[in-house]
């Protein structure tokens, strides 16, 4: 039983982090065609924001509660800054945004190295997160459960915003038909900016979860960005449910493969599985049906 529950639960937690990283990617890609390679660095920024909050406040429990909105804001504002300074000039050339944001990612990583040092910093767990819960004989760390709760909360919040708020309606309208939305008076440019802010902010919240599980590190973004993109590729663009399912599946499958083979072999096999999966569904799990040829 243990051989099944351990990878399943750990994988679900990894999937939760991947989900928070991938939500921003799928939002910006689905709406604007922008591929933001710096999204991994927004995770990193969120993790460091959590670390800095803890240094300032001291009380680990209170710090964590404060860190979640702080990380959301820090990463979100970084994303907004990126949109305003660089991305908005590049909407005509979506593939090039990939390379520009690679440059941004390099700069942000080096910046983190210079400010916080090349070595990672540990984040102290609040006492109420330090325990385990026994699940079928496996002592499941509380912080993994917390990660899943955090991801579900982020997902719930995002879905609610998209479904019920005016912002959300505008975002959906822009994704579905930008020109028509514009004709109806929706300021699509500022909608783009808000989407960028939301997506980057969610990555920041994901950063808090990473900080709790493995501490901070200037290069942690590079560890998550590729799996997060594989999630987007496999999940399909423009709909949340595909991303959710793909994140969960990629997380769990990677965990099982790690358990059966090794961490690095699991990475290779996951990649191979995504390529094979694309043979069956080249557009990903779910996709918005269009009549376009592309």
């Amino acid at each position, binding site marked *: 039983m243990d051989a099944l529950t351990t990878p399943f639960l750990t994988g679900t937690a990894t999937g939760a982090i991947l989900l928070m990283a991938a939500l921003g990617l799928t939002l910006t*890609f689905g709406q604007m*065609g922008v*591929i933001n390679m710096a999204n991994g660095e927004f995770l990193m920024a969120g993790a460091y924001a959590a670390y800095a909050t803890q240094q300032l406040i001291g009380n680990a429990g209170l710090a964590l509660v404060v860190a979640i909105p702080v990380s959301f804001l820090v990463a979100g504002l970084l994303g907004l800054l990126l949109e305003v300074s*660089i991305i908005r*000039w*590049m909407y005509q*050339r*979506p*593939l*090039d945004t*990939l*390379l*520009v944001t*690679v*440059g*941004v*990612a*390099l*700069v942000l*990583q*080096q910046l983190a*190295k*210079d400010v916080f040092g090349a070595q990672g910093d540990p984040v102290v767990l609040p006492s109420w997160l330090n325990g385990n819960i026994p699940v079928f004989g496996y002592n499941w760390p509380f912080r993994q459960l917390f990660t899943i709760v955090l991801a579900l909360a982020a997902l719930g919040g995002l879905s609610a915003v998209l479904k019920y708020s005016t912002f959300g309606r505008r975002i959906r309208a822009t994704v579905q038909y930008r020109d028509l939305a514009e004709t109806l008076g929706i300021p699509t440019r500022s909608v783009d900016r808000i989407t960028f802010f939301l997506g980057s902010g969610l990555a920041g919240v994901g950063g808090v979860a990473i900080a709790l599980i493995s501490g901070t590190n200037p290069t942690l973004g*590079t560890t998550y960005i*590729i799996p997060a*993109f*594989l999630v*987007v*590729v496999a999940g399909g663009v423009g709909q949340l449910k595909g991303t959710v399912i793909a994140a969960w599946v990629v997380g769990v499958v990677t965990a099982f493969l790690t358990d059966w083979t*090794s*961490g*690095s*072999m699991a*990475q*290779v096999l996951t*990649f191979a599985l*995504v*390529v*094979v999966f*694309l*043979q069956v569904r*080249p557009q990903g799990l779910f996709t918005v049906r269009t009549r376009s*040829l*592309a």
Partner: protein
Amino acid sequence: MTTTTATATTTASSRPKAAQLLGTYGSLVAIALVALVLLVWAPNSLSPFRLGNLGKYCSWAMAAVGIGLAWGRGGMLVMGQGVFFGLGGYTMAMHMKLEAAGPGGIPDFMTLYGDGTMPGWWAPFRSAPFTLFAIIALPAAVSFLLGYAILKRRVKGAYFAILTQALAVAFATLLIATIKQTGGFNGLNTFSTVFGHNLYDPGVKKGLYLVSAALLIVFLVIVWQFNRSRYGELLIATRDAEERVRFLGYDPANVKLVAFVAAAIMASIGGAIFAPIAGIISPSNVDAAASVMMIAGVALGGRSALLGPALGAIAVGFGQSTLSERFPTGWTYFQGGLFIVVIMFLPAGLASLWPKVKSLLPGRMSPQAALVDGENGA
């Protein structure tokens, strides 16, 4: 884009013969100039150390020429060329390790990290002809399989780029994990001979450089011929209007696949010459970061120009070794800034400045000029 190209070609055909010849063979003259610098000037003027460095840059430039073909001309952003560079590099390095170990011997690191037995798949690489064959066949097979799987299902644009980068990440992770078979993080190093020639002999070092530079020139000529062939036209057509090409009865996937496989082979040969010149091949030469570095050179020089990728890669290689020694942290900022500035303001690279300079000079713009402004159709 299509209309400007068409008008440029019509004006070219109504031109006097001399100008037309220069338009067609001007690129060959430029290649000849590069050849003169790399093959005649450099070996006679540079110190052996600098010549070795230039040899490394040339090996990166070979990969860059391939990227120029796949990305600049084909619209496929290949972010994992380090994998193919590594396939060639590791193949060559395995052969050199076995040469250093002597007949029947096994590479030193295997006794150091492992139990002193050699995995069976190493054995064929004792043979020099097999190694040379594998340097071309391995990347061709891998890129064909992957390219066929991805391109036939019409996965393109960003998806394609992400998948190639994921391949580079997976490849480097696999290398690091298999320390007993591939030397792990340290890679393969401490070679003594290459195909029987002593690597420490100054003459052999110079010879390796000349091979590297000469191969680069050969690749440039091949790509030049590629570009002016029917296939070259088809590749650009696929980049700019894939659906129209499909409606004309071609399969765009096949067109792209050829460019992808050619780019992989070029990168592999670059890697194979890199290993003996640098004396090492390690995961850091082939991972996602190294692959991105190769892209940087291509973007700087001009992705769809003939000489742009090669010269850009040499410039970035030079910049890396001079700047990173003096300002280790500054280099990363510089590299990141280079991406941002070049892609934002000079999407067709430094090569796009050339027609502007040329139009100021007496005479006309070459028909190639219209092709220089790079679009990314994918």
